[in-house]
């Protein structure tokens, strides 16, 4: 049985609690504010009236059964749905207070600020260096030296530098899957985004690469806000600070990760979590 939650009720969960919870979440420390967002693919609804706030410099995970809309929601955050003409959506999404769908917003700049890593690693058929430098070349005006520096920094931040520093000119497709995914993260980092969206980034990788990616996510928290979509609940539990559980396009529950996993308020959340963990 599900009780309908209004946005205000959800927000009230995040007042500093009297017991002084470890994670303090000031509403002004939110990066993304998603308000009443709905989306439909050619008439068929995929997201219904979703509202939540994504805290800055934290890892927020979206979990839920397949088809629940978590990837759809993620892609809305960097306006990738613009490519698809059959999509219609309503509601507001604010990035640091600005509506991302406002007509004067430059979409390409938005996408620089909100980077994305996809489920299957998709490096360009270019050298490793060129992959990382791709976004930098778009900005233009950088000297060769500066670009080298930034590429090295990005690869280091993605924990890939040591493995590829001798073969920056090699084709990106010669790397293993886990390395390719870290390369994709590196190239996203190179343009200094504020947010990094990760759509099931480790689901196509082996367990060791998965762990490396999770480590990376944790280490990046200090620089950016990360939003992670995953079907792997252990991963969400390990890595994220906040977790949102979606089902059938609706936000069912949103809470700090510990709370959600140890003491979910709703039966459906509990069913999902225990069902999967059993």
């Amino acid at each position, binding site marked *: 049985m599900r009780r309908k939650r209004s946005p205000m009720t959800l927000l009230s969960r995040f007042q500093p609690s009297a017991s002084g919870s470890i994670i303090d979440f000031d509403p002004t420390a939110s990066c993304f504010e998603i308000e009443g967002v709905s989306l439909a693919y050619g008439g068929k609804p995929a997201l219904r009236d979703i509202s939540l706030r994504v805290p800055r410099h934290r890892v927020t995970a979206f979990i839920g059964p397949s088809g629940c809309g978590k990837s759809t929601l993620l892609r809305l955050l960097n306006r990738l749905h613009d490519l698809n003409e059959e999509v219609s959506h309503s509601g507001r999404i604010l990035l640091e207070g600005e509506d991302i769908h406002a007509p004067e917003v430059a979409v*390409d700049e938005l996408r620089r600020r909100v980077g994305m890593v996809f489920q299957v690693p998709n490096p360009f058929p270019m050298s490793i260096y060129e992959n990382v430098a791709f976004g930098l070349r778009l*900005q233009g*005006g*950088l000297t060769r030296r500066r670009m080298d520096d930034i590429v090295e920094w990005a690869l280091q931040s993605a924990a890939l530098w040591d493995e590829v520093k001798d073969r920056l000119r090699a084709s990106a497709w010669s790397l293993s899957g886990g390395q390719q995914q870290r390369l994709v993260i590196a190239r996203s980092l190179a*343009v*200094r985004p504020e947010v990094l969206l990760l759509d099931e980034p480790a689901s196509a990788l082996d367990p060791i690469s998965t762990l490396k990616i999770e480590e990376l996510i944790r280490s990046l928290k200090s620089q950016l806000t990360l939003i992670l979509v995953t079907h792997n609940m252990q991963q969400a539990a390990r890595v994220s600070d906040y977790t949102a559980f979606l089902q059938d396009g609706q936000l069912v529950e949103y809470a700090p990760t510990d709370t959600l996993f140890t003491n979910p308020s709703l039966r459906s959340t509990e069913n999902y979590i225990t069902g999967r963990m059993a």
Partner: protein
Amino acid sequence: MIEPPNLASAPRLPWRRRLDRLATGLIAAGGIGVIVAVMAIGAFLVVEVLPALFDGRLEMERVRLALTPMAWGTLKAALWAMLFAVPLALGAAIHSALFMTRRLRSRMKPTLEMMEAMPGVVVGFVAGLVMAPWVERHLVGVLTLMLLLPLGVLLAAGLWRRLPSGWRRRLSLARAGLWLVPWLLLLALATFSLAPWLEVLLFGGDLRVWLDRELGLDYATRNAMIVGVAMGFAVMPSIYALAEDALSGVPGRLGEGAHALGATRWQTLWRVVLPAASPGIFAAVMIGTGRAVGETMIVLMASGNAALMSLSPFEGMRSMAAGIAVELPEAVPGSEAYVLLMLAALLLFIFTFLVNTLAEVVRSRLRRRYRWLGGAA
């Protein structure tokens, strides 16, 4: 550890977005322009012809007089070409899609694509200047061979059954497309050595004289039969490719289902696979017809260009395409001859466009059907 770069100081290129919009506009303009130009062909022809038709410069009577023999010639040439090409192409497609090993099939397709690449001028040259006189001299042999070829293949099949199984495996039916080649050559040699004797026996020594005397048929060196074979050769690869696609796209489950019910191979083919692929085969034949109608050089070089209207395969014809090629450079723009030829071109355009569109519609419907069946289209 290098400090994180400060991109705020990097110059932002403000014109990136403007460039994007500009480029989108240019691409749209260019793309639309190109497509319009390509489609302008029909428009141009219509513009040239319709006013003349309506303001009386061109009378229907003249049109009928001038264009009917050419239209007849076009259809006759196409008919003979189809007569030769369709059985050949379908047979090859059936064998290729259903009986051949995959390896052989993957080699066969490009080889037959080579046939398609042969320029019409070369095929026309060989047909008109080499084949035509030779056929005239060996007419009995040629006609006999046409009858004997299928029989010869069946004879080979019969003999094959009597071979020991080791031989049968090496010369399998799957490879028959290859090893029948020397057999056919042998057959041809035998036919041509026997032909003079046959000619004396049946026709009193000279078939052409006999044709003229008994049937009143004139034999022109360059005639519809030659054109048929030559154009059939040129058109056959297109039909083959499309028919083969259609046949191999029929989901295997259909055939297996029939087998499970005890049907023999040929029955399966005839009753299940062919009907399922029939739209695709129909489309293939349509496209082949379109190409046969439009082929210019072969008809120009191998048909004698005589504006006759006769049913005999031994007489020449003049096709619309060939007529245009020969007469248009001489015609004065705006004159009656010019407009007539434009009309002929317009008719060709409409015919081929309709035929191709029909074929494409049929094929897309077939694709949709297969997607529903979950087939390997």
